[in-house]
C-alpha cells in the first residue's frame, strides 16, 4: 500500500515531442506528489509538485496531471529537448497529522532520452 508504481521504465522521445511519465498509488493518505529530475552522477532536484486539490499544475514546459479518483498522476514534458534527458522520479507523502516526517515514497524512476 505504500508503493508508488512508475511507468515506463525508459522512454525515448524525439526533440520537440511530448514525454509522458505515469505514476499510480494505493495509499489514499498520500496528498503531496512531487517530481524529481536527476542527471547522471548528480543528486535529484525537485522539479514540480502537486496537491490533490487541483487537477493540473503547469510550470513552463512541465505539467503534472492528477486524477484523484484513479489514484494516478503523470508528468508531461512538452517540446522535449535533449537537455531534458535524465531520470525522472515521482514521489508521494501523506502530510496530514504531521507524523510522516517528510518521508517520501519514490517511484522506481524513468530514464528519459530525447534524441536531437
Amino acid at each position: 500500500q505504500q508503493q508508488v508504481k512508475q511507468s515506463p521504465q525508459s522512454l525515448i522521445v524525439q526533440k520537440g515531442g511530448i514525454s509522458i511519465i505515469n505514476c499510480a498509488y494505493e495509499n489514499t493518505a498520500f496528498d503531496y506528489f512531487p517530481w524529481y529530475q536527476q542527471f547522471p552522477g548528480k543528486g535529484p532536484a525537485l522539479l514540480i509538485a502537486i496537491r490533490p486539490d487541483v487537477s493540473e499544475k503547469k510550470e513552463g514546459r512541465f505539467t503534472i496531471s492528477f486524477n484523484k479518483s484513479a489514484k494516478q498522476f503523470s508528468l508531461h514534458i512538452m517540446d522535449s529537448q535533449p537537455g531534458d534527458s535524465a531520470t525522472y522520479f515521482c514521489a508521494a507523502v501523506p502530510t496530514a497529522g504531521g507524523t510522516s516526517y517528510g518521508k517520501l515514497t519514490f517511484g522506481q524512476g524513468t530514464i528519459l532520452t530525447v534524441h536531437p
Partner: protein
Amino acid sequence: SQTIHQWPATLVQPVGSPLSLECTVEGTSNPNLYWYRQAAGRGLQLLFYSVGIGQISSEVPQNLSASRPQDRQFILSSKKLLLSDSGFYLCAWSVIGSYEQYFGPGTRLTVT
C-alpha cells in the same frame, strides 16, 4: 540561500573496512535530514532520517548506522563494509513541516 554538501564525492573501500560519509547543510536551522542509497542509478531507498540532534530513525535494517552530532550535520557510518554496500549515497534535507526535499550531490561508494 541554503546549500547542502556531501563528502567525499567518490570513495573506493575494501570489504571489511570502516565507512564515514558526511553531510552538512548551510543556511537553515533544525532541518529534517535524510540518507538515501541509490543502486544501479535507479530507485531511491530511504536509509535513515532525523528530526533533530541525536534523533535517528532507521528505515531498513542493515550494516549501516547514522548519527547527527550537530544540528546541520548528518553522518553515515559502517564498522565493516560489505560488497552490497556499494552504491550512490544521497543526503537530503527539508524544512520541518515542509515536504520539499533538497538533495546533495551524492557520494559514489565502491566496495571492492
